[in-house]
Protein backbone atom coordinates (compact mmCIF):
# COMPACT_ATOMS: atom_id res chain seq x y z
CA UNK A 1 0.00 0.00 0.00
CA UNK A 2 2.78 2.47 0.89
CA UNK A 3 4.28 1.49 -2.39
CA UNK A 4 1.11 2.48 -4.19
CA UNK A 5 1.08 5.94 -2.67
CA UNK A 6 4.73 6.75 -3.07
CA UNK A 7 5.53 8.84 -6.10
CA UNK A 8 7.81 6.77 -8.28
CA UNK A 9 10.60 8.28 -10.25
CA UNK A 10 11.33 6.24 -13.34
CA UNK A 11 14.79 7.73 -13.70
CA UNK A 12 16.91 10.17 -11.75
CA UNK A 13 17.29 13.81 -12.72
CA UNK A 14 20.98 14.13 -13.43
CA UNK A 15 21.97 17.78 -13.24
CA UNK A 16 24.92 18.92 -15.32
CA UNK A 17 26.35 16.88 -18.15
CA UNK A 18 29.70 15.23 -17.49
CA UNK A 19 32.62 16.53 -19.51
CA UNK A 20 33.05 13.19 -21.21
CA UNK A 21 31.15 9.96 -21.92
CA UNK A 22 32.27 6.71 -23.48
CA UNK A 23 29.00 6.57 -25.41
CA UNK A 24 26.60 9.39 -26.22
CA UNK A 25 23.24 8.23 -27.53
CA UNK A 26 21.37 10.91 -29.43
CA UNK A 27 17.62 10.40 -29.11
CA UNK A 28 15.62 9.30 -26.06
CA UNK A 29 13.15 7.12 -27.92
CA UNK A 30 12.74 3.40 -27.45
CA UNK A 31 15.86 2.51 -29.44
CA UNK A 32 18.18 4.91 -27.66
CA UNK A 33 16.99 3.79 -24.23
CA UNK A 34 17.16 0.08 -25.08
CA UNK A 35 20.72 0.56 -26.31
CA UNK A 36 21.71 2.35 -23.09
CA UNK A 37 20.21 -0.46 -21.02
CA UNK A 38 21.92 -3.21 -23.02
CA UNK A 39 25.26 -1.36 -22.76
CA UNK A 40 24.86 -1.26 -18.98
CA UNK A 41 24.34 -5.05 -18.98
CA UNK A 42 27.72 -5.31 -20.67
CA UNK A 43 29.35 -3.09 -18.05
CA UNK A 44 29.49 0.01 -20.23
CA UNK A 45 27.96 2.60 -17.93
CA UNK A 46 29.64 5.91 -18.75
CA UNK A 47 26.76 6.53 -21.12
CA UNK A 48 24.42 9.47 -21.72
CA UNK A 49 21.10 9.46 -23.55
CA UNK A 50 20.50 12.99 -24.84
CA UNK A 51 16.92 13.80 -25.79
CA UNK A 52 15.96 17.23 -26.96
CA UNK A 53 12.36 16.98 -25.80
CA UNK A 54 10.74 14.85 -23.08
CA UNK A 55 11.50 11.11 -22.98
CA UNK A 56 9.30 9.24 -25.44
CA UNK A 57 8.16 12.40 -27.24
CA UNK A 58 9.01 10.98 -30.66
CA UNK A 59 7.58 8.01 -32.50
CA UNK A 60 8.11 5.86 -29.39
CA UNK A 61 5.14 7.59 -27.76
CA UNK A 62 3.06 7.90 -30.93
CA UNK A 63 3.09 4.50 -32.57
CA UNK A 64 0.30 1.95 -32.82
CA UNK A 65 2.30 -0.68 -30.91
CA UNK A 66 1.97 -3.59 -33.31
CA UNK A 67 4.59 -6.30 -32.92
CA UNK A 68 5.04 -9.04 -35.52
CA UNK A 69 7.75 -10.86 -37.43
CA UNK A 70 6.07 -12.10 -40.62
CA UNK A 71 8.37 -10.19 -42.94
CA UNK A 72 9.15 -11.08 -46.51
CA UNK A 73 12.94 -11.43 -46.70
CA UNK A 74 14.87 -14.04 -44.72
CA UNK A 75 17.08 -11.25 -43.34
CA UNK A 76 14.08 -9.25 -42.16
CA UNK A 77 12.06 -12.18 -40.81
CA UNK A 78 15.04 -13.50 -38.81
CA UNK A 79 15.73 -10.04 -37.37
CA UNK A 80 12.15 -9.23 -36.32
CA UNK A 81 11.59 -12.75 -35.03
CA UNK A 82 14.56 -12.36 -32.70
CA UNK A 83 13.03 -9.09 -31.54
CA UNK A 84 9.56 -10.49 -30.83
CA UNK A 85 11.18 -13.32 -28.85
CA UNK A 86 12.99 -10.74 -26.72
CA UNK A 87 9.74 -8.85 -26.25
CA UNK A 88 8.09 -12.04 -24.97
CA UNK A 89 10.27 -12.05 -21.88
CA UNK A 90 10.88 -8.31 -21.60
CA UNK A 91 8.25 -7.61 -18.92
CA UNK A 92 9.97 -9.98 -16.52
CA UNK A 93 13.43 -8.81 -17.49
CA UNK A 94 12.56 -5.15 -16.89
CA UNK A 95 10.24 -6.03 -13.99
CA UNK A 96 7.63 -3.78 -15.55
CA UNK A 97 4.17 -4.67 -16.84
CA UNK A 98 4.24 -4.02 -20.58
CA UNK A 99 0.68 -5.24 -21.29
CA UNK A 100 1.81 -7.37 -24.22
CA UNK A 101 -1.15 -9.22 -25.74
CA UNK A 102 -0.05 -11.73 -28.33
CA UNK A 103 -3.46 -12.54 -29.74
CA UNK A 104 -2.54 -12.72 -33.39
CA UNK A 105 -2.22 -10.52 -36.45
CA UNK A 106 -4.30 -10.76 -39.63
CA UNK A 107 -3.35 -9.17 -42.95
CA UNK A 108 -6.47 -9.27 -45.09
CA UNK A 109 -6.44 -10.35 -48.72
CA UNK A 110 -9.01 -8.66 -50.94
CA UNK A 111 -7.81 -9.79 -54.38
CA UNK A 112 -6.45 -12.93 -56.06
CA UNK A 113 -3.14 -11.20 -56.35
CA UNK A 114 -2.86 -10.55 -52.63
CA UNK A 115 -3.93 -14.12 -51.85
CA UNK A 116 -0.99 -15.24 -53.98
CA UNK A 117 1.48 -12.84 -52.35
CA UNK A 118 0.36 -13.86 -48.87
CA UNK A 119 0.64 -17.57 -49.54
CA UNK A 120 4.18 -16.93 -50.69
CA UNK A 121 4.93 -14.86 -47.59
CA UNK A 122 3.59 -17.64 -45.38
CA UNK A 123 5.97 -20.09 -47.09
CA UNK A 124 8.98 -17.83 -46.55
CA UNK A 125 7.98 -17.30 -42.93
CA UNK A 126 7.51 -20.99 -42.27
CA UNK A 127 10.88 -21.87 -43.76
CA UNK A 128 12.36 -19.56 -41.15
CA UNK A 129 10.39 -21.15 -38.35
CA UNK A 130 7.94 -18.28 -38.03
CA UNK A 131 4.35 -19.12 -37.21
CA UNK A 132 2.46 -17.80 -40.22
CA UNK A 133 -0.17 -19.25 -42.52
CA UNK A 134 -2.85 -18.35 -44.98
CA UNK A 135 -6.43 -18.79 -43.76
CA UNK A 136 -9.79 -18.58 -45.50
CA UNK A 137 -12.75 -16.30 -44.72
CA UNK A 138 -14.34 -18.73 -42.24
CA UNK A 139 -11.28 -18.79 -40.05
CA UNK A 140 -10.96 -15.02 -40.36
CA UNK A 141 -14.52 -14.69 -39.13
CA UNK A 142 -13.87 -17.05 -36.23
CA UNK A 143 -10.87 -14.99 -35.13
CA UNK A 144 -12.67 -11.66 -35.55
CA UNK A 145 -16.34 -12.45 -34.93
CA UNK A 146 -17.37 -8.78 -34.85
CA UNK A 147 -15.78 -7.90 -38.18
CA UNK A 148 -17.86 -7.79 -41.35
CA UNK A 149 -16.24 -10.59 -43.33
CA UNK A 150 -19.12 -11.53 -45.56
CA UNK A 151 -21.63 -9.34 -47.31
CA UNK A 152 -21.46 -6.82 -50.08
CA UNK A 153 -18.21 -5.18 -49.14
CA UNK A 154 -16.39 -2.91 -51.59
CA UNK A 155 -13.29 -4.90 -50.69
CA UNK A 156 -14.41 -8.51 -50.15
CA UNK A 157 -12.29 -10.52 -47.71
CA UNK A 158 -10.84 -13.54 -49.50
CA UNK A 159 -8.70 -14.69 -46.63
CA UNK A 160 -5.82 -13.47 -44.54
CA UNK A 161 -2.22 -14.04 -43.65
CA UNK A 162 -2.48 -15.21 -40.04
CA UNK A 163 0.44 -14.64 -37.70
CA UNK A 164 -0.47 -15.94 -34.21
CA UNK A 165 2.52 -14.42 -32.29
CA UNK A 166 1.67 -10.89 -33.50
CA UNK A 167 -0.01 -8.49 -31.15
CA UNK A 168 0.07 -5.18 -29.34
CA UNK A 169 1.97 -3.85 -26.37
CA UNK A 170 1.83 -0.71 -24.21
CA UNK A 171 4.34 1.60 -25.92
CA UNK A 172 4.80 4.06 -23.03
CA UNK A 173 5.48 1.16 -20.70
CA UNK A 174 8.24 -0.09 -23.00
CA UNK A 175 9.82 3.37 -22.99
CA UNK A 176 9.55 3.83 -19.23
CA UNK A 177 10.63 0.27 -18.48
CA UNK A 178 13.77 0.66 -20.56
CA UNK A 179 14.45 4.15 -19.19
CA UNK A 180 14.20 2.92 -15.61
CA UNK A 181 16.42 -0.08 -16.34
CA UNK A 182 19.01 2.06 -18.14
CA UNK A 183 19.03 4.51 -15.23
CA UNK A 184 19.42 1.72 -12.68
CA UNK A 185 22.21 0.29 -14.79
CA UNK A 186 24.11 3.57 -14.53
CA UNK A 187 23.35 5.40 -17.76
CA UNK A 188 22.40 9.08 -17.50
CA UNK A 189 19.17 10.19 -19.12
CA UNK A 190 19.07 13.86 -20.06
CA UNK A 191 15.79 15.17 -21.45
CA UNK A 192 15.63 18.67 -22.97
CA UNK A 193 19.20 18.28 -24.20
CA UNK A 194 19.55 18.84 -27.92
CA UNK A 195 22.59 17.78 -29.89
CA UNK A 196 23.43 20.66 -32.20
CA UNK A 197 26.78 19.54 -33.62
CA UNK A 198 29.25 16.66 -33.63
CA UNK A 199 33.01 17.14 -33.70
CA UNK A 200 35.44 14.76 -35.34
CA UNK A 201 39.19 14.52 -35.35
CA UNK A 202 41.15 12.33 -37.73
CA UNK A 203 37.97 10.74 -39.11
CA UNK A 204 36.69 9.80 -35.64
CA UNK A 205 33.95 11.35 -33.54
CA UNK A 206 35.41 13.21 -30.57
CA UNK A 207 32.62 15.29 -29.02
CA UNK A 208 29.05 16.47 -29.31
CA UNK A 209 27.83 20.03 -28.90
CA UNK A 210 24.53 20.54 -27.13
CA UNK A 211 22.33 23.38 -25.94
CA UNK A 212 23.82 22.60 -22.50
CA UNK A 213 27.45 22.60 -23.50
CA UNK A 214 30.05 20.41 -25.13
CA UNK A 215 30.82 16.84 -24.08
CA UNK A 216 33.57 14.58 -25.30
CA UNK A 217 32.36 11.23 -26.66
CA UNK A 218 34.09 8.04 -27.70
CA UNK A 219 31.09 6.71 -29.59
CA UNK A 220 28.04 8.59 -30.81
CA UNK A 221 24.86 6.67 -31.63
CA UNK A 222 22.38 8.36 -33.91
CA UNK A 223 19.04 7.03 -32.65
CA UNK A 224 16.88 9.92 -33.77
CA UNK A 225 14.54 8.10 -36.19
CA UNK A 226 12.61 10.82 -38.08
CA UNK A 227 15.40 13.32 -37.46
CA UNK A 228 18.29 11.00 -38.32
CA UNK A 229 19.36 12.74 -41.54
CA UNK A 230 19.84 15.98 -39.61
CA UNK A 231 22.13 14.33 -37.07
CA UNK A 232 24.03 12.40 -39.76
CA UNK A 233 24.57 15.74 -41.56
CA UNK A 234 26.54 16.88 -38.51
CA UNK A 235 29.32 14.43 -39.43
CA UNK A 236 28.81 14.51 -43.18
CA UNK A 237 27.34 11.01 -43.41
CA UNK A 238 24.66 10.83 -46.07
CA UNK A 239 21.55 8.71 -45.57
CA UNK A 240 18.99 7.44 -48.09
CA UNK A 241 16.14 8.61 -45.90
CA UNK A 242 13.15 10.87 -46.23
CA UNK A 243 10.96 11.96 -43.34
CA UNK A 244 7.19 11.66 -43.50
CA UNK A 245 4.29 11.80 -41.06
CA UNK A 246 2.27 8.76 -40.14
CA UNK A 247 -1.04 9.30 -38.36
CA UNK A 248 -3.39 7.44 -36.06
CA UNK A 249 -6.58 8.01 -34.12
CA UNK A 250 -8.45 6.40 -31.22
CA UNK A 251 -12.13 6.20 -30.44
CA UNK A 252 -13.63 6.46 -26.99
CA UNK A 253 -13.30 3.23 -24.96
CA UNK A 254 -15.78 0.57 -26.07
CA UNK A 255 -16.74 -2.91 -24.93
CA UNK A 256 -14.34 -5.67 -26.04
CA UNK A 257 -14.87 -6.10 -29.77
CA UNK A 258 -11.58 -7.21 -31.21
CA UNK A 259 -8.54 -8.96 -29.75
CA UNK A 260 -6.55 -9.55 -32.92
CA UNK A 261 -4.80 -6.94 -35.06
CA UNK A 262 -6.48 -6.35 -38.43
CA UNK A 263 -4.50 -4.96 -41.35
CA UNK A 264 -5.73 -4.15 -44.82
CA UNK A 265 -3.08 -2.83 -47.12
CA UNK A 266 -5.59 -2.29 -49.87
CA UNK A 267 -7.74 -0.11 -47.64
CA UNK A 268 -4.65 1.53 -46.13
CA UNK A 269 -5.85 0.90 -42.63
CA UNK A 270 -5.01 -1.18 -39.60
CA UNK A 271 -7.13 -1.65 -36.53
CA UNK A 272 -6.71 -2.95 -32.99
CA UNK A 273 -8.44 -2.49 -29.66
CA UNK A 274 -6.32 -1.30 -26.77
CA UNK A 275 -6.55 -2.62 -23.23
CA UNK A 276 -8.46 0.54 -22.37
CA UNK A 277 -11.06 -0.40 -24.97
CA UNK A 278 -10.22 2.30 -27.50
CA UNK A 279 -10.33 1.31 -31.16
CA UNK A 280 -6.92 2.33 -32.47
CA UNK A 281 -6.59 2.97 -36.19
CA UNK A 282 -3.53 3.77 -38.23
CA UNK A 283 -3.02 4.32 -41.93
CA UNK A 284 -0.34 5.15 -44.46
CA UNK A 285 2.38 7.76 -44.39
CA UNK A 286 1.75 10.98 -46.26
CA UNK A 287 3.67 10.84 -49.53
CA UNK A 288 5.31 14.25 -49.05
CA UNK A 289 8.23 14.76 -46.71
CA UNK A 290 7.87 16.92 -43.61
CA UNK A 291 9.18 17.54 -40.11
CA UNK A 292 5.91 19.12 -38.96
CA UNK A 293 3.98 16.74 -36.73
CA UNK A 294 0.51 17.95 -37.61
CA UNK A 295 -2.18 15.63 -38.89
CA UNK A 296 -4.48 16.03 -41.85
CA UNK A 297 -8.25 15.95 -42.02
CA UNK A 298 -7.98 13.80 -45.10
CA UNK A 299 -6.41 11.03 -43.03
CA UNK A 300 -9.34 11.02 -40.61
CA UNK A 301 -11.88 10.90 -43.42
CA UNK A 302 -10.21 8.03 -45.25
CA UNK A 303 -9.32 6.01 -42.19
CA UNK A 304 -12.77 6.30 -40.60
CA UNK A 305 -14.43 5.39 -43.90
CA UNK A 306 -12.39 2.20 -44.23
CA UNK A 307 -12.82 1.32 -40.57
CA UNK A 308 -16.59 1.44 -41.05
CA UNK A 309 -16.39 -0.92 -44.01
CA UNK A 310 -14.93 -3.53 -41.66
CA UNK A 311 -16.81 -2.50 -38.51
CA UNK A 312 -20.08 -0.78 -39.44
CA UNK A 313 -21.19 -1.01 -35.82
CA UNK A 314 -18.68 1.74 -34.98
CA UNK A 315 -20.74 4.30 -36.90
CA UNK A 316 -21.58 6.32 -33.78
CA UNK A 317 -18.32 5.90 -31.91
CA UNK A 318 -16.63 9.17 -30.98
CA UNK A 319 -13.11 9.83 -32.18
CA UNK A 320 -11.21 11.05 -29.13
CA UNK A 321 -7.79 11.96 -30.43
CA UNK A 322 -5.70 11.83 -33.55
CA UNK A 323 -2.01 12.54 -33.89
CA UNK A 324 1.00 12.29 -36.16
CA UNK A 325 4.57 11.15 -35.71
CA UNK A 326 7.68 11.27 -37.89
CA UNK A 327 8.90 8.26 -39.84
CA UNK A 328 12.37 7.86 -41.38
CA UNK A 329 11.61 6.00 -44.58
CA UNK A 330 14.36 4.07 -46.39
CA UNK A 331 14.24 2.98 -50.05
CA UNK A 332 13.90 -0.75 -49.29
CA UNK A 333 11.75 -0.52 -46.15
CA UNK A 334 14.56 -2.05 -44.13
CA UNK A 335 16.56 -0.36 -41.39
CA UNK A 336 20.05 1.08 -41.64
CA UNK A 337 21.97 -0.20 -38.69
CA UNK A 338 25.60 -0.17 -37.71
CA UNK A 339 28.89 1.47 -38.55
CA UNK A 340 29.50 4.37 -40.93
CA UNK A 341 32.48 5.93 -42.69
CA UNK A 342 33.11 8.05 -39.61
CA UNK A 343 34.73 6.00 -36.85
CA UNK A 344 32.69 5.92 -33.69
CA UNK A 345 29.54 7.16 -35.41
CA UNK A 346 26.91 4.43 -35.23
CA UNK A 347 23.60 4.79 -36.96
CA UNK A 348 20.19 3.30 -36.28
CA UNK A 349 17.75 4.68 -38.82
CA UNK A 350 15.38 3.84 -41.63
CA UNK A 351 12.75 2.63 -39.18
CA UNK A 352 9.92 3.97 -41.23
CA UNK A 353 6.59 2.90 -39.88
CA UNK A 354 7.72 -0.37 -38.32
CA UNK A 355 10.60 0.27 -35.92
CA UNK A 356 8.94 -0.11 -32.56
CA UNK A 357 8.85 -3.89 -32.85
CA UNK A 358 12.62 -3.86 -33.35
CA UNK A 359 13.40 -2.06 -30.09
CA UNK A 360 14.84 -4.97 -28.04
CA UNK A 361 16.93 -6.36 -30.90
CA UNK A 362 18.27 -2.89 -31.73
CA UNK A 363 19.36 -2.58 -28.12
CA UNK A 364 21.13 -5.92 -27.95
CA UNK A 365 22.79 -5.77 -31.36
CA UNK A 366 23.99 -2.16 -31.07
CA UNK A 367 25.32 -2.79 -27.57
CA UNK A 368 27.20 -5.83 -28.88
CA UNK A 369 28.56 -3.80 -31.78
CA UNK A 370 29.75 -1.00 -29.51
CA UNK A 371 31.18 -3.35 -26.88
CA UNK A 372 33.04 -5.65 -29.29
CA UNK A 373 33.63 -3.43 -32.32
CA UNK A 374 32.22 -6.21 -34.48
CA UNK A 375 28.93 -6.09 -36.36
CA UNK A 376 26.60 -8.88 -35.18
CA UNK A 377 25.66 -11.23 -38.00
CA UNK A 378 21.97 -10.51 -37.58
CA UNK A 379 22.40 -6.89 -38.62
CA UNK A 380 25.10 -7.29 -41.27
CA UNK A 381 22.51 -7.13 -44.09
CA UNK A 382 21.34 -3.74 -42.84
CA UNK A 383 24.62 -1.84 -43.21
CA UNK A 384 24.44 1.60 -44.81
CA UNK A 385 27.00 0.35 -47.31
CA UNK A 386 24.32 -1.77 -49.02
CA UNK A 387 23.10 1.27 -50.95
CA UNK A 388 26.49 1.54 -52.64
CA UNK A 389 26.73 -2.15 -53.48
CA UNK A 390 23.26 -2.95 -54.83
CA UNK A 391 22.43 -5.28 -51.98
CA UNK A 392 19.12 -3.91 -50.80
CA UNK A 393 16.84 -5.93 -48.50
CA UNK A 394 13.45 -5.21 -49.99
CA UNK A 395 10.57 -5.43 -47.56
CA UNK A 396 8.25 -3.45 -49.81
CA UNK A 397 5.80 -6.36 -49.93
CA UNK A 398 5.65 -6.75 -46.17
CA UNK A 399 6.39 -3.36 -44.65
CA UNK A 400 5.05 -0.78 -47.03
CA UNK A 401 1.87 -1.39 -45.08
CA UNK A 402 2.53 0.92 -42.21
CA UNK A 403 3.30 -0.61 -38.84
Amino acid at each position, binding site marked *: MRDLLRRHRMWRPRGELRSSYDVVIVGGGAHGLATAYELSKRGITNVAVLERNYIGSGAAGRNTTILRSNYRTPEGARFYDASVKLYEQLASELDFNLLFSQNGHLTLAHTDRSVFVMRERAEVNRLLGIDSRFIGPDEVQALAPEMQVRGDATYPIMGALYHPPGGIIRHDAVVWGYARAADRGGAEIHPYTEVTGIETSGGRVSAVQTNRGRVAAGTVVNATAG*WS*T*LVADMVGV*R*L*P*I*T*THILQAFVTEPLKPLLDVVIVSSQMHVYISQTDRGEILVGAEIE*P*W*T*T*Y*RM*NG*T*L*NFLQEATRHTLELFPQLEHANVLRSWAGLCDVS*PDYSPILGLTDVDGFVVSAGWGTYGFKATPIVGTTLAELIATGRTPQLIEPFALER*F*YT*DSLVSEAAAAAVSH
Partner: protein
Amino acid sequence: MSFVLQCPNCGPREVTDFAFGGELTARPRSRPSERELHTYVYMRRNAAGAQLEWWHHRSGCRAWFIAQRDTTSNLVSWTALPEDVADRGEGAA
Protein backbone atom coordinates in the same frame (compact mmCIF):
# COMPACT_ATOMS: atom_id res chain seq x y z
CA MET B 1 -5.91 20.58 -41.90
CA SER B 2 -3.20 20.09 -44.51
CA PHE B 3 -1.71 22.59 -46.96
CA VAL B 4 -2.27 24.24 -50.30
CA LEU B 5 -0.05 24.45 -53.39
CA GLN B 6 -0.43 26.96 -56.16
CA CYS B 7 -0.42 25.09 -59.48
CA PRO B 8 1.24 27.45 -61.97
CA ASN B 9 -1.52 26.60 -64.46
CA CYS B 10 -4.64 26.01 -62.37
CA GLY B 11 -4.24 28.02 -59.18
CA PRO B 12 -4.39 27.03 -55.51
CA ARG B 13 -5.47 23.46 -54.72
CA GLU B 14 -5.30 21.23 -51.65
CA VAL B 15 -2.21 19.01 -51.47
CA THR B 16 -4.28 15.87 -52.11
CA ASP B 17 -4.75 17.14 -55.70
CA PHE B 18 -1.03 16.62 -56.31
CA ALA B 19 1.55 13.85 -56.38
CA PHE B 20 4.83 14.54 -54.59
CA GLY B 21 7.90 14.05 -56.75
CA GLY B 22 10.62 14.39 -54.15
CA GLU B 23 13.37 16.91 -53.52
CA LEU B 24 15.27 18.37 -56.45
CA THR B 25 18.51 16.48 -56.92
CA ALA B 26 21.64 17.56 -58.75
CA ARG B 27 22.43 15.17 -61.61
CA PRO B 28 25.86 13.57 -61.36
CA ARG B 29 28.55 14.46 -63.89
CA SER B 30 28.57 12.36 -67.04
CA ARG B 31 30.41 9.06 -66.55
CA PRO B 32 29.98 9.10 -62.79
CA SER B 33 31.79 6.64 -60.56
CA GLU B 34 29.64 3.87 -59.19
CA ARG B 35 29.62 5.59 -55.81
CA GLU B 36 28.50 8.90 -57.29
CA LEU B 37 25.72 7.15 -59.14
CA HIS B 38 24.49 5.36 -56.03
CA THR B 39 24.64 8.60 -54.09
CA TYR B 40 22.51 10.25 -56.75
CA VAL B 41 19.97 7.41 -56.81
CA TYR B 42 19.56 6.86 -53.06
CA MET B 43 20.95 9.59 -50.85
CA ARG B 44 18.69 12.51 -49.95
CA ARG B 45 19.26 15.84 -48.22
CA ASN B 46 15.86 15.53 -46.49
CA ALA B 47 16.22 19.16 -45.43
CA ALA B 48 14.52 20.64 -42.39
CA GLY B 49 13.64 24.08 -43.74
CA ALA B 50 13.41 25.41 -47.27
CA GLN B 51 13.31 22.60 -49.82
CA LEU B 52 13.00 22.72 -53.60
CA GLU B 53 10.81 19.86 -54.73
CA TRP B 54 8.87 18.40 -57.64
CA TRP B 55 5.08 18.23 -57.73
CA HIS B 56 2.73 16.79 -60.31
CA HIS B 57 -0.80 18.12 -60.68
CA ARG B 58 -2.23 14.62 -60.88
CA SER B 59 -5.91 15.52 -60.52
CA GLY B 60 -5.66 18.69 -62.60
CA CYS B 61 -3.64 19.84 -65.61
CA ARG B 62 -1.07 17.04 -65.10
CA ALA B 63 1.87 19.44 -65.33
CA TRP B 64 5.07 18.90 -63.36
CA PHE B 65 6.26 21.96 -61.49
CA ILE B 66 8.70 23.02 -58.80
CA ALA B 67 7.84 24.38 -55.37
CA GLN B 68 9.85 25.80 -52.54
CA ARG B 69 8.37 24.61 -49.26
CA ASP B 70 9.54 24.91 -45.69
CA THR B 71 9.42 21.33 -44.40
CA THR B 72 9.21 22.48 -40.79
CA SER B 73 6.00 24.48 -41.38
CA ASN B 74 4.72 23.19 -44.75
CA LEU B 75 4.45 26.79 -45.93
CA VAL B 76 4.98 26.99 -49.69
CA SER B 77 6.82 30.17 -50.62
CA TRP B 78 6.60 29.83 -54.39
CA THR B 79 5.81 27.46 -57.25
CA ALA B 80 6.87 27.67 -60.89
CA LEU B 81 7.10 25.61 -64.04
CA PRO B 82 10.60 24.15 -64.48
CA GLU B 83 11.46 26.33 -67.48
CA ASP B 84 10.74 29.45 -65.43
CA VAL B 85 12.80 28.20 -62.51
CA ALA B 86 15.82 27.75 -64.78
CA ASP B 87 15.34 31.40 -65.86
CA ARG B 88 15.42 32.50 -62.25
CA GLY B 89 18.66 30.61 -61.77
CA GLU B 90 17.24 28.71 -58.83
CA GLY B 91 17.14 25.31 -60.45
CA ALA B 92 20.39 24.00 -59.08
CA ALA B 93 19.75 22.53 -55.64
